[in-house]
């Protein structure tokens, strides 16, 4: 007993010192996070990258079981579902017929107008590894990362609609900030009125549509698509439908099925007309034929860098396919992008 007390008498100041040092370290960590956010977020991505895939062997069965239970509940109403599906199938056959006719007509018209489809709207498919784990953040972790050529800012979709935006890329994982996250802001267009709006996440299932010029022109059920303003997202990706809540706020009901996000497509967007050098403001950075750049450009360095960037963005095709075997590169892949009307007009 007495010896314990003795130990205690000098263990206590040591403990207090240790505690103070630890607290100082932790608070300075927070300060560094506040000051040098990008570097800290890269560190966070690296830590997540090294921890979460290791936990996957334990998490995958649980996720699978929970999803199975979820699906099992729907078996109880199998009969009604079957009837419903039959009716829908009937309707879909009619739609398919119309779609085939339209597609043929579309192909003829495209041929007439010599439209070039955007070859860069290809995608890499990834599997959802984990969510943010916090009730106040809406984000996902995908199993594709820098080694698959993923870049920050690329759009992410499920089969139908936009899900979110890549923010934070580690070597083998990347984080998708969902449209419902409180930090998410996406410029959108509301069709058919053509109004511009900002889709603002607020941690609820249906993000708010802000800054609409004429709210009278917008009615529930209107389509919401990305506008492509500011180069944030490629234009004309389906986001959802307009819904008006009881208190008169205009929100978007998202087309992507947020309840069961499992496989996501990361769209390879354009690198955009990024200005890498002040000289690029004067000289046009695009056309980028390599011989033209090397002949006419007095300073080949910036254009080479642009070339590298594009190769980065286009490259990694094969690795993207390796991750799942589902990433497809043929340009007539059924990406749910409506016909690129504005571009067609330009070419005319």
């Amino acid at each position, binding site marked *: 007993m007495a010896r314990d007390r003795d130990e205690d008498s000098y263990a206590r100041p040591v403990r207090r010192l240790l505690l103070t040092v630890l*607290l100082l370290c*932790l608070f300075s960590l927070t300060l560094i996070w506040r000051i040098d956010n990008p570097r800290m977020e890269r560190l966070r991505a690296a830590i997540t990258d090294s921890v979460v895939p290791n936990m996957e062997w334990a998490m995958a069965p649980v996720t699978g079981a929970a999803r199975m239970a979820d699906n099992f509940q729907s078996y109880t109403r199998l009969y009604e579902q079957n009837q419903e599906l039959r009716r829908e199938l009937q309707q879909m056959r009619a739609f398919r017929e119309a779609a085939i006719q339209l597609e043929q007509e579309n192909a003829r018209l495209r041929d007439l107008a010599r439209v070039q489809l955007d070859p860069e709207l290809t995608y890499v498919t990834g599997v959802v590894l984990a969510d943010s784990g916090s009730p106040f953040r809406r984000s*996902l972790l995908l199993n594709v990362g820098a080694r698959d050529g993923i870049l920050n800012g690329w759009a992410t979709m499920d089969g139908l609609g936009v899900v979110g935006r890549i923010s934070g890329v580690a070597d083998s994982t990347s984080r998708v900030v969902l449209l419902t996250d409180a930090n998410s802001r996406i410029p959108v267009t509301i069709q058919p009125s053509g109004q511009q709006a900002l889709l603002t996440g607020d941690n609820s299932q249906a993000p708010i549509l802000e800054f609409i010029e004429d709210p009278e022109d917008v009615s529930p059920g209107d389509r919401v698509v990305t506008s492509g303003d500011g180069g944030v997202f490629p234009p004309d990706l389906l986001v959802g439908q307009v819904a008006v809540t009881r208190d008169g706020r205009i929100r978007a009901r998202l087309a992507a099925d947020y309840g069961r*996000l499992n496989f996501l497509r990361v769209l390879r967007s354009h690198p955009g007309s990024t200005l890498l050098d002040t000289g690029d403001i004067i000289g046009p950075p695009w056309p980028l034929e390599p011989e033209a750049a090397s002949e006419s450009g007095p300073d080949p360095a910036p254009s080479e860098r642009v070339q590298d960037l594009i190769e980065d963005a286009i490259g990694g095709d094969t690795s993207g396919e390796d991750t799942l075997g589902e990433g497809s590169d043929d340009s007539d892949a059924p990406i749910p992008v409506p016909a690129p009307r504005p571009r067609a007009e330009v070419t005319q």
Partner: protein
Amino acid sequence: MDRQVWYIWSTRALFMALALVILGLQLLPLGLSDTGLPPPDWLLAFTLAWLYRQPVVMSIGMIVVVFLLADFLLQRPPGLWTALVLLITEWLRQRRVTLTEVNFLIEWGSIAGAVLALLLLERFVLWILVAPQTSLGLSLMHGLLTVAVYPIAVAVSHYVFRVRKVALSDAETA
């Protein structure tokens, strides 16, 4: 003595495993579409429950490692929540000796105070740093739910993990 050391380290290992399981469950990509109540912070509830029962087991180093990992994985400002939890647990550790023999309601009350203080301190620091924060209502709800599930954490610790309160005489030697 040897047995005691073995008990401490095995319980620490148990807590680490429990923390990893809680973090893993939180990270499961399941509840993406429900946006009702924010779920309670089970990690904090278990930490506080074990701290009251076996303060020797919950060493500073383990708390720092577990909570720092949680900070990084759960997209929180790294270090801040860990530091505050460390502060609060030290404070509870000092108060504990006087609270050991009291009934559960008073323990629960002190835990509620601690959680509330944690939340308000976090908001205060974030406010000073002009960092983005969540709405007050949501985080208060989060704290309330954490306090509400505290008895469950205590019961699970007591009956499943066999983490019982040490008597006052043991606590003094510890």
